[in-house]
């Protein structure tokens, strides 16, 4: 009995180790944390694997913890980094990582033709493509001429209980709120958020949920006809056949917020050479074109990118990077206290 028990126990303990052997077997590999939607990022990473022969081990985030979950993980790991490359779907939380010393400088040669706005002067991040914050509406229930044209329209009585926004603790909504704090000033931004709250805006987990709610709006049951989301979510909804349409908001004054998707080398990356190869690849013109030409909802960052499906909004929100970054956490802390679902 003792022998059998011992054998069984030892075998059981050995099994996980055997199961884990293959994980560390590959030598040429790169670990990437990806905040870009999996459906958009995975094919690109697979193409890189095929072209370079480098195995990509990716960690994707979930909708509810969008971007912030991976940033949290990177911060937590910064003493013992496991990740090589962070591919973010926005900029400001990449700035946070850079500012906290979690990123290393790397200037990919493939990004030489990028405008200066889309790469860090110190080389700690480089843009891949960009998305816009838009107002999405249900085209079956909201005529185009009655759709809100400004984010401030969402505080009006006609949209009471009919609008949705993602939890501003996470993802692009977090960056958007920080940008509004920077551009409008703290008081005006807080008033806008408070007015949204007073107007019974529905706060959900992630921008994709906003798109889902608007796409499935039903009078009486789920009357969420409009919401704030990103171009990539709207495009994915359209690809599913949802009756969605979008507006680049505030074209008369404030402008529409554009958020570059960024890629960065993690400080102390365990596989620096492979990481640089991946960054070179992701920042190349080919990947930018592939990302913006399809239904991903991304907009180009290179001038003269003719293949892009979406056009850039004429008027863009002008957000000074330093102010945007400085407002990231104050705005998050305020929303944590005053804008909870």
């Amino acid at each position, binding site marked *: *009995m003792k*022998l*059998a*028990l011992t054998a069984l*126990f030892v075998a*059981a303990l050995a*099994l*996980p*180790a055997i*199961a*884990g*052997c293959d*994980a560390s077997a590959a030598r040429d*590999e790169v*670990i990437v944390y990806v905040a870009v939607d*999996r*459906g958009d990022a995975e094919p690109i990473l697979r193409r890189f694997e095929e072209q370079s022969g480098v*195995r990509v*081990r*990716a960690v*994707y985030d*979930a*909708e*509810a*913890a969008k971007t*912030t*979950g991976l940033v*949290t*993980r990177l*911060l*937590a*790991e*910064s*003493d*013992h980094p*496991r*990740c090589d490359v962070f591919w973010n779907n926005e900029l400001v939380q990449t700035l*946070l990582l850079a*500012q*906290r*010393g979690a990123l290393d400088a790397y200037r990919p040669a493939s990004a030489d033709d990028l405008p200066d706005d889309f790469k860090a002067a110190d080389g700690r991040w480089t843009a891949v493509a960009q998305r816009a914050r838009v107002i999405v509406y249900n085209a079956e229930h909201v005529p185009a001429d009655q759709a809100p044209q400004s984010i401030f329209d969402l505080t009006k009585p006609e949209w009471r209980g009919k609008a949705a926004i993602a*939890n501003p*603790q996470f993802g692009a909504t977090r960056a958007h709120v920080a940008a509004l704090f920077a551009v409008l000033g703290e008081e005006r931004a807080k008033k806008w958020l408070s007015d949204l709250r007073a107007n019974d805006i529905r706060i959900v*987990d*992630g*921008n*994709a949920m906003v798109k889902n709610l608007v796409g*499935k709006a*039903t009078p009486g*049951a*789920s009357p969420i006809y409009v919401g704030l989301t990103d171009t990539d979510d709207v495009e*994915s909804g359209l690809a*599913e056949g949802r009756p969605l349409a979008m507006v680049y908001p505030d074209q008369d004054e404030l402008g529409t917020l554009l958020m570059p998707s960024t890629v960065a080398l993690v400080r102390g990356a365990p596989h620096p050479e492979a990481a640089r190869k991946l960054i070179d690849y992701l920042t190349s013109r080919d990947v930018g074109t592939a990302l913006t030409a399809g239904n991903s909802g991304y907009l180009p960052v290179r001038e003269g990118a003719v293949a892009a499906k979406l056009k850039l909004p004429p008027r863009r929100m002008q957000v000074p990077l330093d102010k945007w*970054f*400085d407002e990231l*956490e104050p705005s*998050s*802390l305020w929303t*944590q206290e005053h804008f909870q*679902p």
Partner: protein
Amino acid sequence: MPSSPFRSAAAWLIFAVVLAPLVALWLPSERGFRSPAAQVQSPKSNSAAAPSAAGKNEQAPAGVSWRTLCASLLVSAGAATLAVVIGGSAAAVLSLTDLPGRSFWATAFAIPFLAPSTVWALGQSYCYGAGGLIERILGDAWRPWWSRIDQGGYLGVALVLGEIYAPLALVLIGRGMAGFEQAGFESARLYLSPAKLVWWTAGAVRQELAASFLLAFALALGNFTVPNVLQCRLYPIEIYLRLTNYLDRTGAVRAATPLLAACLLATALVVLAERKRAYASATTAPALPPIELGRKAWLVGAALAIYLTLSCAAPLAAMIWQCRSVGDFMAALRDAAPETDNTLRVALATAALAAAAAGVTSAWLTERKRAFGPLLAMIPLSLPALILGLAYARFYNRDWPIDLARLGDTKALVVIGLAAHSWPFATRVLVSGRRRAASEWLEAASLAPLGRLARWRWIVGPLFADHFAAAALLAFVLATGEVEISQLLCAPGDGTLALRLFTFLHFGPTHVSASLAVLQLAITVLPVVAYWLFTNRSLRII
């Protein structure tokens, strides 16, 4: 069998390996952690490297959201009540009557518990949610009415959780009913009216009713995936959001504490309720002469069929319908091939580890008469998987003299976490088997003039082979659909199918999510069906 010091030591070692990481939840931690969970404590580099505008805003953890906690307690209580009503009714029919096809019905009833809860909730959403199958067939006129009575989505979550945990109530209560004394039950049948007979029966299995309510309550309280899929703000979601937001570093553990306390209290009460009762492992063969249903068999069968159609078949049909086409389904499967392979490896290793550990602890528990042992063995069962995963991530990512964090770069860590989670279920199955085995056999085995291996080969092995298989099967099935522990412990690039579905859930194309859900369901249900076909002892699954 005589008590063995070796077995006792091995059992205590397993308890220590499984339970010690829980202590890490509350350990002070100046050292760096390497997991997403670790954000709840301060890694040195974060604050030391960069005193910043951002850093200065770190704040004290937010308080416990009592409103959400109360909502979770109420939803869980509702789900547990529903599970007891459904499971108890099914147990009465399957344990006490001569309904034809009891073995089939019992296996079908087990599916909601064995299927991954993400998949189950997704199926219900595709079927009954906005734009779902039912809406396509019946129109959406009923939806405003439903929305009025289910504001916040709590009722929907309670219904789905009730369905998921009804099979647990079925086996627990069914076991109690199978143990009725014939004379008492016959007398009750002869002299009591049907209503009073139901009351008498409920009284006779009151311990099992209490145990199944408490167990379902504890499990529903910690369930993260169902409220996540159905977008209902319950307490596990609150913990998850704090866990993933570095602004609230200690908030997750602080928030988890009341949930943990409630789950542990419920578990302790389960152990108390089950004292001097056999663990559930119901059998298809009634111990009593069955109640003859006669013509009513059709009625009862129809009621079961309607329930299973509404809860299982219709959502499954909706899921298949959402796959769009065979081509899309196959494409989604091809894309998920690495995760499928990984899921099978992880689940098989988990099954082996959990069954082996359960083999040791069940032998030890069978000899113990005090409730302390069963309580230890039950703790990981009732702990919310999210909290268990958090504890393991923090424990293994500490700076120990031996670098345990290296396990996190392999599949070993997730296998250990998943095995710890399913080990109590496996233990219950094996304890049940040991208690049901005739003690003479075990005594004969210990006295037989055979070597240890021969004794295992010829006596002990055959005696418990089907229970070992059931324990391993249960651990395998639970591991294949697990999300919470996997997302915290899986090595980069080694994600499972459940994680793939989790990351595609809300923003991925619907047909991809549906295809992944169908694949996951197949991986979990097919082994159960195979087990049922090979053994024809469906209710021994649990």
